């Protein structure tokens, strides 16, 4: 019995784009085209690497890469094929205008048409909108359990053991598949480079392409799935965010720094 896993992919604008070059077009509420390269998102890369490791380890047998996005984001699917995903599926849609709920709707429809999967892996959040919702919404609509911020998975009889990042702790859970995991970054999850043979072959492999209509979602239905309305997007005025803490007395300065860090909830200390 072949265990099937699906990885949800997304292409976003290069997150290492220098802040000085970043702009938002107020009309489209998005960065204008061509600011920088469009790349497979960092957490999606982690999810893809985790899926491949699970395939290497025999925890899953087949991996399908699934992406809902515009035509040129197919590059991310080629990348997935070049690292030995078995199949790549493209749901053609202008993803920039969709909210997480609409994206999830498309992905769920696609998942229902694919060979039944035991595991769906998604990045913890996409580096453009940073909502961090799609993976969980997919789980809810499929009626599956979801575990977030996972970086390691092993098989234990019929269950999957996962290690995930909890609040101030690393949690280990046992999950009965099918399930959705969202994946967070971890040193072991740097996406591998594909072999040259695989990279060249990936350019020739077929990619399944579906439109929302083919998946049974009319434009009205898709519009109706929206849960968030985007009013506006803007780049805040660039000020050096560095807050200088000054003072003559080092003890006071140290206390002030600690205090500020606690205020910012970056340091939790017993109170």
């Amino acid at each position: 019995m072949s265990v099937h896993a699906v990885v949800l992919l997304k292409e976003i604008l290069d997150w290492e784009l220098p802040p000085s070059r970043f702009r938002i077009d107020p009309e489209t509420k998005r960065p204008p085209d061509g600011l920088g390269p469009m790349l497979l998102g960092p957490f999606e890369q982690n999810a893809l690497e985790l899926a491949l490791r699970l395939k290497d380890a025999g925890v899953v047998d087949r991996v399908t890469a699934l992406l809902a996005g515009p035509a040129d984001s197919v590059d991310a699917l080629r990348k997935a094929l070049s690292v030995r995903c078995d199949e790549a599926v493209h749901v053609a849609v202008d993803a920039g205008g969709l909210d997480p709920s609409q994206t999830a709707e498309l992905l769920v429809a696609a998942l229902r048409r694919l060979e039944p999967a035991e595991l769906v892996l998604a990045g913890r959040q996409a580096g453009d909108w940073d909502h961090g919702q799609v993976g969980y919404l997919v789980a809810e609509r499929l009626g599956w359990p979801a575990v977030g911020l996972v970086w390691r998975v092993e098989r234990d009889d019929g269950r999957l053991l996962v290690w995930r990042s909890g609040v101030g702790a690393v949690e280990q859970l046992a999950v009965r598949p099918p399930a959705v995991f969202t994946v967070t970054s971890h040193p072991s999850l740097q996406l591998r480079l594909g072999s040259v043979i695989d990279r060249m072959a990936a350019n020739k492999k077929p990619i399944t392409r579906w439109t929302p209509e083919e998946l049974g979602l009319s434009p009205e239905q898709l519009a109706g799935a929206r849960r968030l309305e985007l009013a506006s997007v803007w780049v805040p005025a660039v000020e050096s965010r560095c807050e200088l803490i000054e003072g003559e007395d080092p003890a006071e300065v140290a206390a002030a720094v600690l205090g500020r860090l606690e205020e910012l909830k970056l340091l939790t200390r017993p109170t």
Partner: protein
Amino acid sequence: MIVAVTWDEPRLGPASREVLGAAVRLGAALGEEVALASLGADGSGAAEEAGGYGAAQAFVVEGDHAASGSEGAIAALAELARDVAARVVLLPADDRSAELAPRLAERLGGSAVTHAVAVDVSDGRPVWTRPVYGGKALASVAAASEPVVATLRRGVFEAAQATGGTAAVSTRTAQNGDGAVELLGSEAPAAGASLEDASVIVAGGNGIGGSDGFTALEELAGLLGGAVGASLAAVDAGWAAPDRQVGLTGKTVSPDVYFALGISGASQHLAGIGGAKAVVAVNTDPDAPIFSIARIGVVMDCRTFVASLIDRLQSAP
């Protein structure tokens, strides 16, 4: 009803008071009352205090929610939210609510808004501001359907003020999940653990001046529950082991706080700390490049700063 959620809080701590404060102000603007839901161990303490900070009701949800991952908590909160006809549910943004909020919103047929840094009311409904594009921009969003489950970025919302009021406290029991997810164990990462996993990193550079300086950093890291890092300069000088090096040819780290002590901020080093939530830079040179990417800066000899910080941490209650 606006529901503010806290977790594992025997008393109403600063984090919870921020969420509660946002709930109270939002409630006032929408004409809704505020309820506090306290989950987890010893939740009753927080619930008792809630009334004193503007909550009209408080619920203690008993039971070991974590045992079933988030399943139990989601089910409990969903039931509670329906019972009180919540329009908005507010949670602190953390690794738990990252998973919980979108699923809860879906169960309630509503919308989730994550990492909110501000909320206003317009035309009788909340409008949320949240960072996008890795924080390079801000977006203003509104929910298309209610209830809204929102996670609030910490350190941004003003804490609730004491009102001297009281709230009715009731207890509910959480249901257990269907067993699809089971928590097997959890462990806090050891202090001085790997740099990549550390949530606090104390890193030393040229300004540390010697290996004794690094001994002080070890002490500081221990007090903060973090790990010690080093710049290439410090490793070259032999003050720190090569596996401590952060940067282009060293480790890439993403802690909550990165103390850059006596580090100038060469691009080679910055290449490793892009993931840090906040950099605290301490350097005698006010023009050092590190300040341009730091959240908090101190122009001071880093050794003096480290000594003062250690003193403070050891003496504070």
